[in-house]
């Protein structure tokens, strides 16, 4: 269909007009803004590497979102689970051996911490039917505050000046895999996670169960599954992904625990996964897309081409554009197809 009066087109026109108008009001040149964004994200090495680096945690978390949302379970609290996983891993890091085994254990602790934090919401959901939207939001606030306390209290560095932990042992750091960049072995972890998740979702028994629970919980019960338990469990599982992402970030990038090292990743991960309709194979693509967006917008911010809030406007607008584009192919003449 190439008719131009489709509603998507109005949406796109509105959003673009809003952004262009705002940029013009700021006295900037929209083309220059666009060029700055695209150029840094796609045509500079640093920009692209920066995006690639951010793709790693967003991919891992996006996969966790895909799993839980497929089961109809809305894990809005990945940020808290990420904190819990990171904190547990860093707290126990001093007792870990060095080398590959140590790194594996470090990541496993991240998973365990995230899973435990998600599991609280899971348990409340499975046992008491408590809605996960509330519990995961609340648990994120709790985790944020506890982190604030940990890095000023029990886990603060020895100098006790800056609110952060001591660095973890160098032997627990994920090695850089591309010389001269910060691309670390966490990249491989993400690749592995994508492949494993995709297989589970597309062909696995577990993925099938998640889908049934998400699409028709009564049918799941009929088929002999326990929908409440599965829904509760998937919160722990997706929490594990968040914890893994946190551990990878610490082991691969920051080397220590501190506040605010994964700002808003949990929310971004939801967008990452939903835009590709929870398809694990496409999650890394979407994560890269969002990371490039951030890198590009970062460059606009760096050059201070426009006042900062305008960058938020562009960010929102681009997500709206992603959305409008994502519904375009889905819309076919009315009545010809239902949700399928």
């Amino acid at each position, binding site marked *: 269909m190439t008719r131009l009066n489709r509603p998507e087109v109005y949406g796109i026109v509105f959003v673009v007009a809003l952004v262009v108008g705002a940029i013009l009001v700021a006295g900037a040149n929209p083309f220059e803004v666009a060029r700055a964004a695209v150029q840094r994200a796609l045509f500079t090495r*640093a920009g692209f590497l920066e995006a690639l680096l951010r793709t790693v945690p967003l991919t891992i978390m996006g996969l966790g979102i895909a799993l839980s949302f497929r089961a109809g379970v809305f894990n809005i609290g990945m940020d808290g689970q990420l904190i819990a996983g990171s904190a547990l891993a860093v707290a126990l890091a001093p007792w870990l051996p060095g080398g590959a085994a140590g790194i594996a254990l470090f990541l496993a602790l991240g998973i365990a911490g995230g899973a435990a934090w998600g599991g609280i919401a899971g348990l409340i959901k499975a046992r008491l039917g408590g809605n996960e939207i509330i519990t995961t939001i609340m648990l994120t606030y709790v985790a944020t*505050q506890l982190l604030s306390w940990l890095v000023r209290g029990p886990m603060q560095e020895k100098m006790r000046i800056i609110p952060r932990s001591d660095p973890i042992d160098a032997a627990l750091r994920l090695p850089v895999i591309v010389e001269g960049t910060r691309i670390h072995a966490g990249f491989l972890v993400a690749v592995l996670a994508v492949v494993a998740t995709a297989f589970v979702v597309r062909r696995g028994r577990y993925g099938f169960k998640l889908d049934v629970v998400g699409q028709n919980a009564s049918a799941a019960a009929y088929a002999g599954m326990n929908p409440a338990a599965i829904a509760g469990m998937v919160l722990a599982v997706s929490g594990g992904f968040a914890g893994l992402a946190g551990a990878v970030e610490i082991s691969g990038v920051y080397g220590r625990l*501190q506040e*605010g*090292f994964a700002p*808003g990743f949990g929310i971004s991960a939801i967008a990452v996964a939903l835009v590709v309709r929870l398809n694990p194979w496409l999650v890394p693509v979407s994560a890269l897309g969002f990371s490039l967006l951030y890198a590009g917008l970062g460059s606009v911010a*760096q050059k201070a081409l426009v006042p*900062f*809030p305008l960058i938020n406007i562009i960010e929102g607008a681009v997500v709206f554009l992603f959305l409008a584009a994502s519904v375009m192919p889905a819309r076919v003449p009315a009545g010809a197809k239902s949700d399928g």
Partner: protein
Amino acid sequence: TKRIALVLPGPITDGTFNSAANKGIEAAKKKYDIDVVVRENTDFAQIEDVLRSYAEDGFDMVIGHGFQFAEPVMNIHADYPKTFFVVNTAQVAAEPNVASFDNRWGDAGYLAGAVAALYSKTGKIGHVGAIPVPVIEQYNLGFERGAKRMKPETQVLSAYVGSFSDIARGAEITTSQIEQGADVVTSTGNENVIGTIQAAQKAKVLAIGTAFDSAAMAPETIITTALINMDVNIDLAVGKLIDGTLKPETYVLGINDGGIGLAPLRGFESKISAEDKARIDQLVKDLAEGKITDLP
């Protein structure tokens, strides 16, 4: 023409911490032949990338505003010897190209505490911090010591908002301190400071500003401001870069460097005894002469 980037953790409109840095760079812009870029709202996770990209762009100086810039700067500075990195409100330095500037927040708190104690009738004063980051903790400590110096029986309340931007909660915490009897309050952080001042204004108690001379915001309420002139740091850093005197060391700016100070007591001189007024003047003098021993 030198090219300078100022990297801020928050928005330039916060009215305190980030606004101050922006003000400093604006001042420097007028004085020197420099090209300036200001980057706002830099998340922790982005810091390293942001610093690198300015360095790669060939900026002569990159200023990170906040202690959280210290570590990323230390990580990367060696890769970019042509760029001078300055961390503001932190104390790090490294050859050949890392310097830091800090203000004596504790001294500022000390002054604020002393003034507050003298103006308080109830003997209770309060400090509302955003989040206990190092400089805020220093200020908090100084506030208490300064108050006790003037009136040892003064009771100092202290509480934290848990956020730099939650202005409403900042106001409520202040209100609760007022309910507990505090009649002079102060606060540190970003937007939350505005909340404190508004709460004081509504409850008709007194407040002491921090950082910016904020008397204009509430002339009936704000006795004075414990100035923390973070703009001076920036101005100074730029000046030293231009004249080639910037060294890889930590510059801690006290009252004598204009790093901190006490704003005039506009209209409030008459509200305390001449004797107390003299004690304030004496305190400022002692501080300048280094005679105070219990500074944080």
